[in-house]
């Protein structure tokens, strides 16, 4: 639907397209008699800026009544002309005011959007003691500026797409040309364009559409809240995705090993980084397997305990009314509920919750003979272990529960078989042509230098072979 040049008619059409009450119109006439109307969405338009940069200059306009000439008078740096009324309505909804002129078949859109942003802060899910503390925020422009500031190269491409039928959310695909695999970039763009969603409130909505196995238990797209990690991943040859309204950036292809790496690993000596990565791996194994083996040992294979430990455990559980497996399941559920509640609960209630969790549920339940001390210790250990790899919590907590169930039903052999299942599942999972378990399966010798083991920076002269980047060298001459 094109602009007719009849101000009343065009305005009427736009009002039909935008019947909301917070869409305001104001009519003006310039000194030379040029009639124009400003149409804007009240809550998201910076009216002060609109007045200063657009309306005041136009009131004094005395030139030709053409969009080009009028546009020159507007001092706002963001402005463009448009003839399609539907597109104009989209811009109004995006917060950009539209200027309609009498007898002019073009409208002017000005970028005086009012942006409400929170300050750039350290993300609470990815804290680094050493290293940058900046985190992404909800505004895509600021987020892209954070990326651009770290990668001052013309090779950095940021391509914008609109996703979401109603939300029309801006999505930025960021990559280094010549370093990222073209095919991956194209595949991601195609998948994003094909998304037929109503709204995109957060980047996590997109992961489902980007994954090769949408119902997979495993994560298939990497996530980060930190621009330094985001840029490092892009520099390795990955493709980054920023979504307006979401502080969580996505990266692809994703490797499982990424979640064992922290940005801090690159700012501390390699032996320390290796140690902490091994610790995280061990913590993850403890989190998943400890409750399961504890149950399997009690029910099916006492020999897994040294005799003195066995007697201690036997003493502790003697008066417990539940079977060992049920007792463990109950304690696990309590932990999960406490965890869930502590995240959602207002901060000032947090302390009270800790007291309730630790003292009332822990100490009192033991002395009342509801649960045994070893069960609480085991679950506590497991819970702590889980948080050593925070990015995998969603997966590991499910796997832990599954392990517990098979351990309680089949015993140790069940644990082994479930491990086999998971192993087989993980090794056969790929995203964007990259095996999730690389560089361990398939083994990529060179990439092992920055996996669980971390070599000195000088030894990481090449980009990960797993990511198949066309630009192989990252240290020295390219």
């Amino acid at each position: 639907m094109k602009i007719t040049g009849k101000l009343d008619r065009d305005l009427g059409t736009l009002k039909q397209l935008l019947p909301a009450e917070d869409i305001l119109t104001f009519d003006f006439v310039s000194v030379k008699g040029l009639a124009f109307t400003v149409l804007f969405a009240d809550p998201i338009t910076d009216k002060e800026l609109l007045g200063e940069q657009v309306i005041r200059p136009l009131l004094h306009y005395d030139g030709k009544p053409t969009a080009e000439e009028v546009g020159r008078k507007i001092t706002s740096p963001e402005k463009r002309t448009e003839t399609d009324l539907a597109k104009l309505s989209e811009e109004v909804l995006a917060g950009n005011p539209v200027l309609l002129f009498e007898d002019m078949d073009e409208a002017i859109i000005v970028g005086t959007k009012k942006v409400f942003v929170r300050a750039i802060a350290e993300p609470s899910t990815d804290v680094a003691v050493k290293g940058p503390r900046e985190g992404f925020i909800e505004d895509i422009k600021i987020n892209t500026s954070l990326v651009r500031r770290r990668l001052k190269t013309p090779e950095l491409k940021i391509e914008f797409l609109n996703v979401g039928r109603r939300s029309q959310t801006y999505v930025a695909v960021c990559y280094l040309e010549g370093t990222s695999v073209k095919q991956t970039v194209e595949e991601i763009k195609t998948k994003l364009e094909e998304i037929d969603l109503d709204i995109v409130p957060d980047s996590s909505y997109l992961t489902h559409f980007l994954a090769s196995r949408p119902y997979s238990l495993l994560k298939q797209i990497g996530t980060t809240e930190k621009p330094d990690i985001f840029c490092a991943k892009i520099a390795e040859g990955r493709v980054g995705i920023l979504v307006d309204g979401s502080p969580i950036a996505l990266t692809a292809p994703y490797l499982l090993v990424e979640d064992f790496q922290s940005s801090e690993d690159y700012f501390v000596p390699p032996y320390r980084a290796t140690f902490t990565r091994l610790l995280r791996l061990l913590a993850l194994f403890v989190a998943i397997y400890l409750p399961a083996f504890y149950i399997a040992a009690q029910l099916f294979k006492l020999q897994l305990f040294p005799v003195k430990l066995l007697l201690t455990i036997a003493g502790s559980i003697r008066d417990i009314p539940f079977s060992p497996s049920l007792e463990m399941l109950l304690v696990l559920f309590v932990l999960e509920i406490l965890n869930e509640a502590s995240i959602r609960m207002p901060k000032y209630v947090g302390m009270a919750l800790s007291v309730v969790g630790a003292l009332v549920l822990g100490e009192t339940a033991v002395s009342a003979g509801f649960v045994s001390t070893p069960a609480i210790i085991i679950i506590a250990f497991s819970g702590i272990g889980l948080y050593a790899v925070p990015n995998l919590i969603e997966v590991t907590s499910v796997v832990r529960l599954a392990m517990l169930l098979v351990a309680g039903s089949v015993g140790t052999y069940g644990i082994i078989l479930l491990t086999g299942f998971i192993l087989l599942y993980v090794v056969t999972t790929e995203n964007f042509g990259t095996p999730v378990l690389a560089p361990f399966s398939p083994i990529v010798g060179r990439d092992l230098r920055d996996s669980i083991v971390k070599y000195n920076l000088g030894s990481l002269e090449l980009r990960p072979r797993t990511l198949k980047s066309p630009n192989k060298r990252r240290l020295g001459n390219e």
Partner: protein
Amino acid sequence: MNKISQRQLFFLLGCVAPVGKLVILPARLAANAGGDLWIPALFHVLVQSAVIFCVLLLAKRGKSFYELLADTFGQIIAKILSVLFALFLLYAALLPLLEQQIFVRGVFYDTLPSLAAFSPFFLFSAYLCAKPLASFGRVWDILGPMAIVSFAGILVFSATNADYLAVLPVGSAGLKGIAGSTALSFSWFFDSALLIPLLGKIEYKRGAAWKGTLCYLAGGFAVLLFLVTFFGIFEGTAGNQLFAFTKTSKYYSAITALGRIDYVFIFALALVMAFYSALPLQGSIDCVLQAFGKKRYLPTLLSIGVNLLFFGFTVFFDFRFNLAMEFISQKLFWIFPVFTVLLPPLCLLLRRKRHESA
């Protein structure tokens, strides 16, 4: 994911000998050949190495077993032979699976559990068998190092308690004892047959044949070392020691203080064994799929069928393991050399016809 890389093949070859021969075989050999238990094993390792060399030479041609047969005999005979070979693999799978069953019920429980305790294996196996055989390659990138470390750990724990002179004097079992043990152990050494379904799926690179053979030989010698260690620990009572690899390491002095830490290695090897036990079933299904094409639901249906059949076998042979073992390893042992010693070298004589699609 459609091809098995050279490294994955080498891991498989290096592990296939130790992993499949650690449960019942050592006790069987000790019972029949005493201190000479390593001689039949040495014979089999050398023979299988030679046969595996032949199979790897066949792999160089880049064609599947069915394609090789079809080039020479035409499609109908090739189909029949492929199915015949698939049936052999099913037959070969029976003993390791029954062995797994009594191993699981004996080692993972303090008291004899119900039969249902082993049944989840068939769920795992059905899932595994429904996947393409070549996808199995990547698993060996994980299982290979895991098996090597676990096996080495068990050997180190065991070696301190072994009296290696116990295998002396060489030849104490006599020719009859050694020959008898050699015959009965054929049913455990069918490693070359496991490679046949992999033909056409291996990324053959120069020198893979002899390198692969060396890997198998290394694994084979690890078996010999284990057998000697096993006999060195149990001597005259070795014939009574089922589940050999779970027992040799428990006498290590640190075990007393820390509990059975050797279980870490035992469980890791049990995981590798679960994959190994399903390998002949997977190979068998793949042979049929090669011959009849991968129709949409055929792999899944075959996988469910085969695993249900074997679940039935485990129910039937429950408490009849010795009967099954006697039948397979003594009465019908000759089937094994036919398919695992004679057949693979004969395949080298198959015509080198250019594939139509080439």
